[in-house]
């Protein structure tokens, strides 16, 4: 217990340099590495997280849009130290024969080797593939970008919207950050006005006229982890995530309607029914998504 209390003030004051081994308190560093679970539980018993925030607190979020000139829409999201860049590029394709009035939406999340020592270079790993699928499900099921709005000429030409999210710094809770980045970038997209020419069967785009995308529901995701069947921790970092056997993700739209609810892993909180735990998380998520939505609104200038 003495270790944790002695560590607390430094952890509170330090903002980002936690993983660097250059800090003076080596015994605390060693303890942190060898007994991560105890290290975390001592912090939690004092009401704090290892990165200095309160147990129920979220990390600060900032959004920057439109900084990548090679994309039709882009955003950079920082959630604590987790950094995501989302770039959206549109291309033109022929619609499939089954659905001539549908464009394509192709979301992908990449967690390249640059963002964490745990990821290897090469094709997307399991985690990245999982997140890509979650993101695709979320966008399709909540009709954020209806494929029917991407038609240039029925049966002839449609837009393909490639949504690519690249993680630059992985400090946990990548999915929340990715969803926020995608929504910010989608709002930033300006597509050129396109016209399909029947004679040449080509699509020609205007250089001067453009329009934003027609967007449906904008879901924002909030994730939690449950530690030791006692603590529900919002917005887990990459240090905490491996110690949290249960994770809950709730994505809500503008009306606080659920777009995605997912709980993974066995186990809830001792002394509370699963329903109550989920209800509590929901209440926190409602508040958080309102806050995220405010930041999202402010990001668009």
């Amino acid at each position, binding site marked *: 217990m003495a270790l944790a209390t002695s560590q607390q003030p430094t952890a509170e004051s330090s903002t980002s340099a936690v993983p660097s081994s*250059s800090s003076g308190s080596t015994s605390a560093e060693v303890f942190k590495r060898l007994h991560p679970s105890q290290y975390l539980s001592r912090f939690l018993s004092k009401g704090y997280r290892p990165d200095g925030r309160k147990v129920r607190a979220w990390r600060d979020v900032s959004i920057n849009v439109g900084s990548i*000139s090679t994309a039709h829409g882009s955003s950079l999201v920082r959630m604590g130290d987790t950094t995501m860049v989302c770039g959206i590029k549109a*291309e033109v*394709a022929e619609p499939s024969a089954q659905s001539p009035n549908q464009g394509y939406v192709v979301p992908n999340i990449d967690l390249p080797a*640059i963002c964490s020592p745990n990821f290897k270079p090469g094709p*997307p790993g399991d985690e990245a593939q999982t997140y*890509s699928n979650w993101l695709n499900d979320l966008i399709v099921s909540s009709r954020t970008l209806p494929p029917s709005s991407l038609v240039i000429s029925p049966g002839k030409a449609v837009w393909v919207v490639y949504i690519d999210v690249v993680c630059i710094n992985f400090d946990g809770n990548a999915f929340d950050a990715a969803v926020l980045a995608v929504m910010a970038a989608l709002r930033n997209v300006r597509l050129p006005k396109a016209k399909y020419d029947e004679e040449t069967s080509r699509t*020609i*785009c205007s250089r001067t006229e453009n329009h934003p995308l027609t967007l449906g529901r904008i879901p924002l995701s909030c994730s939690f982890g449950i530690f030791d069947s006692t603590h529900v921790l919002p917005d887990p970092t990459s240090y905490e995530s491996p110690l949290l056997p249960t994770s809950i993700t709730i994505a809500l739209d503008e009306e606080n309607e659920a777009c995605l609810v997912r709980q993974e892993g066995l186990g809830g909180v001792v002394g509370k029914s699963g329903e109550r735990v989920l209800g509590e998380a929901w209440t926190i998520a409602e508040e958080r998504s309102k806050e995220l939505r405010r930041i999202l609104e402010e990001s668009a200038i």
Partner: protein
Amino acid sequence: MATAFDRRRIPGPEISIPPIYEPLSNENEAGPSKRSGRSNDEARPIFLKTGLISQANGSGYIESGGVKIACSVYGPRPKAPPYTPQGTLNLEIKFAPFASNPRRAPLRDTEPLPLSHLLTQSLLPTIQLHLLPKSSIDVFLVVLESDTTTNVLSAGLTVASAAIADAGIEMYALGTSAVISSTCSDTSPGDGTGSGNGESILVLDPEEEEERNSTGKVLVGSMPALGKVTSIWFEGENGIDEVSEMIEKAIAASRDTHTILAQALLEGAEERGIGGDEEVA
């Protein structure tokens, strides 16, 4: 076409083409564009910052002209057998799919491999690898925005040096680089025979348009602190004297980049409270 279906990504349609824009209405705009308000010996401003990627041992982020690159360094970390008396440098450049025009579809993009190789070669002489037996240094670069290949390599070398230094890995000197392209003056672009008679203009840090109209370009990687050159990459057709002049100019320009690089490293060190004595309480 569909030889191997990529199951690891959300698939798009088999074929999609980048938007085709209508031809420019007035021809004047399409003509040879002037440099955006800078002289021929002036590089575009560089923004460089170290230590942004907290997960990495060392990192850097650079914005230089139309290029944005994030770089992180992991290591030195233990390397799997066989035993090597020297450290190994692994370097990978990756382009984000949205980083260039047209879009770079994953798997179909073959450019990064030779680029990684070129950058490794120009970076190798700067690192004291003999001090790191049995270890490897992993350098990863993600290109978030790019215009020309040479600019990517040039900015890549600078940011990789910054990140390696930021990781505390011992180096001989910081590596920086510069690009010079030569353009023939007073010859219409369609002429094609300008290389002999026309006076050629040497341009530092060329923009995409300038590089396209150039007769030759050279990328020089150097260690300004030691006065040594680590790599020269020339492409095009120019007289030997002219190429020597281009190299001279590039070396001179990379000294300026070196100043920016050193400044960024000092600032990064100060922010973390190392270096300046008064910072350490």
